[in-house]
């Protein structure tokens, strides 16, 4: 096959590209330029966007012996990922930009361009596994390296996208093994730090970055009874479930810690309350997709596990597709067997059956597990 290896400049994608070559494919390395300001050198462990990353990717491609190009996706990345990130926060939701990048850039814009230019597949350094069932249908599964598993951020991929995706690191038991292989191959990036956080926020200061773009105004923090218990410097800086950084002068009535329960961007208010008020009995989303073959009848409840963050533990749940209570649309409804907490709308719930990713939804509705007065 003709394979486009997306090379970030990190160790994982470099090893993935090398393995694709060894598997007998005709491989071309492509680095995505995502930043509008590529003229910056790496200052920490950034995942993309810098000249140094591009050079690292090129050096790895040189060693592997494959052609290498840089493709500019910065305009689309800004629209689909960065602007989306700002808009979601502004609306009081908590987006996952890496997921959005996979959904809109890596396995959409890049994959489309690759197929148009004559490639058969895109290979990345994600830790996830693609299995093919007896009928030739592709399934997305967790990686063998459970600690590094990235199937969550790939949960948005559809059957069509999976058919043209390749994850050569999926069966590797550990990151240490990938690093050792990179060192043995002579890649200079063998010991390069992992990328963390959000690649387009160079210093990792998400609050400061957002404040610069959406402005920050002082607002009030209320408790569940509506009483003002403190002030804040901009509601967008808070995420549901957050405990630290509230700086509440007055202790709660019961003296127990308080958590962010709700962020209201329209009134610039933050609502806090006890931990149990975060507990959710149900989450649902109308924007859902199946990773591979859809269930034959999704209106029949499915025993599954749900994961609501990239590194959260999965929780046993029941998932079902049904009509929205009041509106004419379908939604994927997920009922965990024990309450989930710290979930915001905008987050993605990925549904697993065993190691297999069944599908996902962007959470747009939650149902509390307890009677609350807000």
């Amino acid at each position: 096959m003709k394979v486009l290896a997306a090379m970030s400049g990190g160790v994982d994608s470099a090893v993935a590209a090398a393995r694709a070559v060894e598997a007998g494919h005709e491989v071309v390395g492509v680095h995505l330029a995502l930043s509008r300001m590529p003229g910056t050198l790496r200052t920490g462990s950034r995942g993309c966007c810098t000249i140094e990353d591009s050079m690292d990717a090129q050096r790895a491609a040189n060693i592997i012996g494959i052609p290498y190009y840089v493709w500019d996706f910065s305009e689309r990345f800004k629209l689909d990922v960065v602007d989306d990130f700002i808009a979601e926060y502004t609306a009081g939701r908590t987006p996952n930009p890496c997921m959005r990048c996979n959904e809109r850039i890596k396995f959409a814009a890049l994959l489309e361009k690759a197929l148009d230019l004559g490639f058969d597949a895109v290979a990345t350094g994600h830790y996830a596994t693609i299995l093919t069932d007896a009928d030739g249908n592709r399934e997305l599964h967790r990686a063998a390296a459970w600690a590094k598993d990235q199937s969550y951020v790939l949960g948005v991929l559809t059957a069509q996208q999976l058919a043209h995706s390749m994850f050569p690191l999926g069966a590797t038991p550990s990151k240490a093994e990938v690093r050792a292989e990179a060192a043995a191959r002579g890649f200079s990036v063998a010991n390069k730090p992992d990328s963390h956080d959000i690649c387009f926020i160079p210093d990792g200061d998400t609050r400061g970055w957002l404040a610069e773009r959406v402005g920050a105004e002082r607002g009030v923090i209320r408790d569940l009874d509506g009483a003002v218990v403190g002030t804040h410097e901009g509601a967008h800086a808070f995420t549901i479930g957050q405990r630290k950084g509230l700086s509440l002068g007055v202790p709660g009535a019961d003296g127990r810690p308080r958590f962010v329960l709700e962020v209201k961007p329209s009134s610039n208010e933050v609502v806090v309350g006890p931990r149990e008020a975060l507990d959710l009995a149900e989450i649902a989303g109308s924007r859902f997709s199946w990773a591979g073959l859809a269930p034959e009848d999704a209106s029949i409840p499915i025993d599954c596990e749900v994961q609501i963050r990239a590194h959260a533990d999965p929780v046993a749940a029941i998932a079902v597709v049904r009509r929205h209570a009041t509106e004419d649309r379908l939604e994927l409804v997920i009922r965990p067997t024990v309450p989930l907490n710290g979930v915001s709308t905008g987050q993605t719930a990925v549904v697993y059956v065993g190691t297999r990713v069944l599908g996902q939804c962007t959470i747009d509705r939650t149902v509390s597990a307890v009677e609350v007065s807000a």
Partner: protein
Amino acid sequence: MAVYLDHAATTPMLPEAITAYTAALTIVGNPSSIHSQGQNAKRLLEEAREQVAASLGAEPIEVILTSGGTESINLAIKGLFWERNTAEVSRPRILVPRGEHHATVDVVEWLETFEHAVIDWLPVDADGRIVLSELSARLGPDVALVTLLIANNEVGTLQPVAEVAALAAGHGVPVHADAVSAYGHVPIDFRASGLAALSVSAHKIGGPLGIGALLVARTATLVPLIHGGGQQRQLRSGTQDAPAAIAFGVAARHPQPSLVRLRDRVIAGVQRMVPTAVLRGDAVNRLDNNAHFTFPGCQGDSLLFLLDSAGISVSTGSACQAGVSQPSHVLLAMGLSEDVARGALRITVGHTTTDADVDAFLAALPAAVARAQRAGFADRRVGE
């Protein structure tokens, strides 16, 4: 065997230049040393300088050897700007056409940021040629210098340098010409040109990388960038690279073949194979090695990738940052939209180009264009 049609980026070294270069690497002696071995190195260096001078209609004393075109341009523009702005006299304005090479654009913008220069960008026409009436209207006593390309490095259009020099002379304003892309393709007579300074690079004419020259007229003065041993009229200190100069000299005196026939084969062939392609730059007054087209509905970098996969090396023509092609500022200055500008491809022939190379390119082009059109602008637009 790869087909190389990117001679404007760099052209292969001439075999004679390689022979002279490698032989010269055994020379012992610093040209500035007083002993006999130093004198020998100096003799060979000065012979080379004479050959470079002769190729440009200049006198040897006017040839300042540098590390290449970019250094030459930096020395010319900064050196003239500082020379013309002293404690007593302020001449802040620099007249520069739009669509110059980045070696010029970035230098004048640096002077604007750090040295209080005022950049007067001159409009260019649809072919990229300077509008002389605009130049004429803006010349005055507060102008430090005029700088322009002799031939645009992307679209190949030749500039009316003699007219520019004459207009500037009327106001006593020095002119620097960037001849990096024109050298070897257009006759240059520095003595007759009326220019104060002119930049060239060796690797564009079959000499080695890492050496170029700034011609500085006997009558011109400028402030040096590099201080030290005072070599080369104190304009460019540092031990001189005799072996590179010797190889440069060989390339300079080597006859440059006319490339018009091969270039015209490329132009006619593209127009026949892809009738929607649009030739950019002046159809007649253009470099003899340059064919430049925009392909509607294509991204130049998709075309470049597909042709590269087919073993053919061409260029989008525009400068890149970290390997990313930007829409060409030259094409934008000529009035093209960003989308049209992104479809640019520059094909440049050279001394090693054969008819078979042109045939291979033309054979691969239609499929590449069709495929690139299918890919279109998927990476830029918000789809769905």
